[in-house]
């Protein structure tokens, strides 16, 4: 079994970890995901690949609950995400059992990032091909938080972020348009950001809203359509105003 001890992730002569960089490539190919932190609401949005006619859409979930007060969205290899999420879910309950307290968002992010890092420094394994957006409320202070992890195992907190396909464009949009929002305004910002890179329509995006009291709620297609329609109408109004009133002949 000596052959399986060899590390797959090794340094290149110029100090790169190519396996980690290739994993980031896999993330870049994955469907877009966006997260926006408001004062009392956190929104996760993902690009939804059009589901095959015979497929049950409910089983293709890219926004997952880790515990009652913490959720996760990801971009990249779905199977890798499933494995990582299972480990995180067990850790959430294990934490409750041993210290009699729910995890903080930072704790579980640190745990997931730690796991991702472990797989860059172990023999015979490859890194996880996902970047995650982890959101939740502190169980005691109620402060909302948004964190991102990536295949290298780094993590940091964000006010708003995106990952996956075209994440740079989405992040640029967020940098230009981010303000402190709450409630429906936060949802609108997330949807607008996602619409920058996703085909318009409720069929192509999935939105989940998290509040301190109600936890995670997946918006159904009709609700998303309504928000998208609202945004489109606003855009059209702005366009019309730019063109100016019709000139008299």
């Amino acid at each position, binding site marked *: 079994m000596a052959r399986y001890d060899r590390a797959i992730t090794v340094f290149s002569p110029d100090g790169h970890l190519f396996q980690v960089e290739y994993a980031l490539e896999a993330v870049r190919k994955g469907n877009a995901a966006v997260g926006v932190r408001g004062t009392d609401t956190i929104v996760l949005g993902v690009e939804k690949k059009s589901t095959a006619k015979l497929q049950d859409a409910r089983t293709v979930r890219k926004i997952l609950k880790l*515990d009652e007060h913490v959720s996760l969205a990801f971009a990249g290899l779905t199977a890798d995400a499933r494995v990582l999420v299972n480990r995180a*879910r*067990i850790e959430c*309950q294990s934490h409750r059992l041993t210290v009699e307290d729910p995890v903080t968002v930072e704790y579980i992010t640190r745990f997931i990032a730690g796991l991702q890092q472990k797989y860059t420094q172990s023999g015979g394994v490859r890194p996880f091909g996902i970047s995650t957006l982890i959101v939740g409320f502190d169980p005691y202070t109620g402060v909302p938080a948004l964190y991102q992890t990536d295949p290298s195992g780094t993590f940091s907190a964000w006010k708003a972020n995106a990952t996956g396909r075209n994440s740079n464009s989405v992040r640029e949009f967020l940098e230009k348009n981010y303000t402190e929002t709450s409630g429906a305004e936060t949802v609108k910002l997330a949807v607008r950001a996602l619409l920058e890179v996703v085909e318009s329509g409720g069929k192509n995006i999935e939105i989940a809203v998290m509040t301190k009291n109600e936890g995670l709620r997946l918006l159904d297609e009709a609700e998303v359509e309504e928000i998208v329609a609202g945004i489109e109408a606003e855009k059209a109004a702005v366009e019309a105003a730019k063109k100016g009133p019709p000139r008299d002949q």
Partner: protein
Amino acid sequence: MEPMACQWTDAPHSMGTTIMAVEYNGGVILGADSRTTTGVYVANRASDKITELTDNVYLCRSGSAADSQVVSDYVRYFLNQHTILLGRLATVKTASTLVKELSYQNKSFLETGLIVAGWDKYEGGSVYGIPLGGTLLRLPFATGGSGSSYLYGFLDQAWKSNMTQEEAEALVVKSISLAIARDGASGGVVRTVTINEEGVQRKFYAGDKLPLFHEEIAPRPTPIHAN
């Protein structure tokens, strides 16, 4: 001469408790006394022996306090994961089966008799008894603890199926009161938990509010002698 034996150091650990759960038309009612003893010493006269497993399933604990607490902690640990993965409330049957697994697989280490009861949308209210050895049995009503010995004859006569919530609640309070009257290891207050489709409701019956039975004297004011 042999030193005097102290009950609270030498007494075998007895199942000091009365617990019960009853299925009624629409849900379940769990009831328990509140006395925790070490021999004859009452360690806690207001303990809560009815513990939450999930939003819709609760557990009555008897026997070793430590063993029953640890079992309920582990069942909560597994049930929480199960609920998050499943995406909906766990069933009473699932919760009971998990309790049974822990009780049976660890039977040589544990000394705890448990009653699981709750409400789910498939079976409505259900009660499961899990006595010492780790058997799992669904029952219309279940009793446990040292005080339950005094309730068998009473419930044979008084229990009937398809009671209303009020009838069932009255039966539970009366039963626990009767057991408290005769069992030294049961006492304190009566706590009940009602679980149905609407949710969970906790009730508290203070010791002096419980009914009195045969040969029990009602409290009366002491005469003040003027002199």
